[in-house]
């Protein structure tokens, strides 16, 4: 049995004691560097990290036979400051809301040309997936088009100045859900559970991942590429700017999101959950919230909740998610 | 010289197809033809109008037929809803799908000033039902039209109808037979002279 080592901060990119095939793609000097250096992402950008790992893994899984379609958003903007591009793969950006449909078109063209070895990846932020891209995404899922769609979820419209999206969590402060009034931040009772919506289409493969467990992310990309048809990967990517967190805390915050239960890590096939990553070290939501400026209005200067009701509601949400997906060992998921 | 036809009916009676079939029949005979509907969204039972122009030379105009040389009415109940005879030329032909006479339909006075030998009813739905099992009178009325106006031959109508239903030869056969029966019916009615034509004697 292979020994698993956990990532420590962001310095350990190779696990030298691990079998070659289990090693992260990033440890391979022959990796594609799909998203190579020189892009203009912020320091500590979770999306840049996630995209680099995801696409290099996809390139390895497809032996370099891949085309990527990107929606408008941070990733597209910071990676292609004309006349430069940091993409070393075949890459197309069309519009904000149509990445899934454009990906469908690319896949159709490859099929009709008999290039069945070339795979298609579509990718977008949470806005381009959950809101403006939702119609096209649902269409792509419904037709079971052969596209792996990746959502880099930083839970708001970051590139335009941190506005609320359908993926923004309750109580989070954004420019359009300010931390003022009796219900500060994003209202409770809104938002879309995008992985669940993807599962409702009964597509071959749906998975969630975060930048806290990059091996897991790579493994899921590789697993996704073993399927044909519509596949969906939802990756939590903290945004230091929009979340008001320290650039060095990106991976830690992502880990806390999973350990509080707020972000469940799992895989589903044809609408049924088949694998769940259990929480190793459960953490209360406060540990997660306190690291982020977007939740700062819930605490006072010494870190004590000034809105214990909201914190409790968020804890409740986390607990429900733990129960629902069976994220803690003595609890069976009921999803 | 262009010959203009206007076809009235309800959605589901084959009004649009009738115009197309007529155009095809004329095409078979080497003439130019143009057929098009006056449209609405799909809805069975709604009034539908279609147009067909026949000519020896290219037909360029696209306006609806406002002064028809011939009218085909697939559903006489329309007379109370639509101005069926608007613009009909004095020398115009009228063929109405009905088992009743024009008088019995209450159209006697309306049609008084037209040429009586060019006005006829034909029991199209009944003929269609007997041959094809469906109350769709369009092919039938075209058979009648061929007889009444001689603008197209029954052979051309037969070819057009046959080709349209080419995928199911038995359906094609039955529609062709129905059209042929209407053709024969109209020929009989016409040769029996003015006395047998629907309009009642002037005294009424």
């Amino acid at each position, binding site marked *: 049995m292979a020994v698993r080592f956990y990532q420590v901060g962001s310095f350990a990119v190779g696990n030298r004691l691990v079998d070659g095939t289990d090693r992260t793609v990033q440890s391979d000097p022959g990796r594609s560097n799909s998203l190579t250096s020189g892009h203009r992402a912020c320091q500590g950008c979770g999306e840049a990290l996630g995209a680099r790992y995801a696409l290099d893994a996809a390139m390895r899984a497809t032996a370099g036979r891949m085309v990527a379609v990107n929606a408008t958003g941070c990733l597209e903007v910071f990676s292609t400051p*004309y006349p430069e591009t940091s993409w070393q*793969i075949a890459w*197309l*950006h069309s519009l904000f809301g149509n990445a899934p449909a454009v990906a469908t078109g690319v896949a*159709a063209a490859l099929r009709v040309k008999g290039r069945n070895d070339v795979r298609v990846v579509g990718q977008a932020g949470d806005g381009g997936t959950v809101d403006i891209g939702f119609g096209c995404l649902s269409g792509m899922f419904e037709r079971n088009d052969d596209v792996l769609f990746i959502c880099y979820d930083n839970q708001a419209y970051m590139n335009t100045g941190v506005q609320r999206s359908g993926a923004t969590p309750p109580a989070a402060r954004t420019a359009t859900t300010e931390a003022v009034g009796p219900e500060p931040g994003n209202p409770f009772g809104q938002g879309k559970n995008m992985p669940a919506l993807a599962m409702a289409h009964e597509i071959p493969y749906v998975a969630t991942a975060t930048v806290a467990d990059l091996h897991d992310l790579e493994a899921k990309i590789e697993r996704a590429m073993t399927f044909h048809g519509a596949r969906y990967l939802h990756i939590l990517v903290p945004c230091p700017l929009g979340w008001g967190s320290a650039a060095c805390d990106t991976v830690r915050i992502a880990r806390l999101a999973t350990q509080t239960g707020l972000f469940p890590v799992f895989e589903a096939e044809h609408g049924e959950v088949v694998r769940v990553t259990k929480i190793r070290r459960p953490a209360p939501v406060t540990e997660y919230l306190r690291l982020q400026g977007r939740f700062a209005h819930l605490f006072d200067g010494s870190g004590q909740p000034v809105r214990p009701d909201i914190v409790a509601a968020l804890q409740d949400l986390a607990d429900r998610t733990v129960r629902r997906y069976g994220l803690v060992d003595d609890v069976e998921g009921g999803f | 010289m262009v010959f203009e036809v206007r076809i009235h009916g309800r959605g589901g009676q084959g009004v649009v197809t009738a115009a197309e079939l007529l155009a095809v029949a004329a095409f078979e005979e080497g003439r130019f*033809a143009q057929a098009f509907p006056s449209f609405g969204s799909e809805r069975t039972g709604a009034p539908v109008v279609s147009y067909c122009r026949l000519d020896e030379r290219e037909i360029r105009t696209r306006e609806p037929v406002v002064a028809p040389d011939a009218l085909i009415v697939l559903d006489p109940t329309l007379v109370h809803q639509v101005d069926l005879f608007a613009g009909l030329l004095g020398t115009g032909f009228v063929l109405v799908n009905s088992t009743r006479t024009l008088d019995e339909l209450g159209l006697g006075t309306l049609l008084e000033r037209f040429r009586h030998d060019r006005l006829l009813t034909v029991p199209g739905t009944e003929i269609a039902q007997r041959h094809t099992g469906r109350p769709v009178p369009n092919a039938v009325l075209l058979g009648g039209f061929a007889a009444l106006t001689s603008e197209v031959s029954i052979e051309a109508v037969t070819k057009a109808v046959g080709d349209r239903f080419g995928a199911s030869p038995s359906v094609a056969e039955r529609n062709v037979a129905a059209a042929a029966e209407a053709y024969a019916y109209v020929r009989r009615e016409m040769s029996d002279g003015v006395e047998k034509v629907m309009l009642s004697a002037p005294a009424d």
Partner: protein
Amino acid sequence: MAHTVALCRPEVVCAYPISPQTHIIEALGALVKTGELSPCEFINVESEFAAMSVAIGASAAGARAFTATSSQGLLFMMEAVYNAGGLGLPIVMTLANRAIGAPINIWNDHSDAMAARDAGWVQLFAETNQEAADLHILAFRLAEELSLPVMVCMDGFILTHASERVDLPTPEQVDAYLPPFEPRQLLDPDDPVSIGAMVGPEAFEEVRFIAHTRHLQALVRIEELSEEFAETFGRDSGGLLHRYRTVDADTVVVALGSVLGTIKDLVDTLREGGMRIGVLGITSFRPFPSDAVRAALEKARRVVVVEKAFSVGFGGVLSTDLAMSLTGLTVPVATVVAGLGGRPITKTSLQSVFESADRGELGQLTFLDLNHDLVARELQRIVQYPRSGPSAENILRGLGTPAGTG
């Protein structure tokens, strides 16, 4: 139409249903399903926005892409239409011209094409079904040669639902005229490129200018390709414009699309009566053939533009473009807005307008067959009881009809 498009060997066909384009796409779908049109991927998309997006992806990946829409559908995909135009992807689209709501109206006019006129697409207007079919063949050739998307405009219902005599091209003819699609740059893992970067102020103008020069090249190529078309297929179709009895005409009528047939018939009748009148049909609306139009009209004493669109708050659309082409000449241009929302354009109505023009009495802007009484009553009511709300329903209120039963 479907038959001709199929002969052009499209590789990806994707469209969303909208009246009156549905049967073209349905027929293509059937051809793909039976294998008659192969290799071809037919995709049932979930919206027009998706339709144009799928076409964009397909075209960027090197496949010949085709879609079709009308009116509301065109508007729904408008972001993608501009995207395709800006990226210079050689997509061909049938635009079955239909009015744009509100009020919702499924009948023919040219407001949809006019809404897209600045998007960088070539816009060709067909006068007959023959020309509509032929223009598709020319469209694919032109699009792929100049790396420009092309829309073939054909009047909804009037052409799309008309049966008329058409000479169908043979596969050999089409193959001789239209070679396989070989894009100069495409999405290929063997030669990766990034397509769709954000271009800032330092280069945007140049990119747009190059698109403009492509259109100017199209003005030349459309004529040349139409000549080649005539050689290959044995008939005249397309070209930048068609002139009919304009050489010695005092009055020249200008129009787009199927109404030209009606006008030609009328012109013959009026000529018999001694009026010196002719008609100019513009086929290529974008790029606008300014020089050719000017040459055709400079000897006229007056121009009457009959158009199926108008710019609310201003006047005609075609006539405005046309007037620009005639800058410096003293030829007066009158606009006649006709056929909006599918109202039939009759020879009778046109005749009185042309006679009025011939007498020098036609005003600058005329709305053909406008119901002046109805309008006057409604305007009066508005003055008496000013209230906001939709005109169509308020007209009914004025008549005492509950709007709900309209």
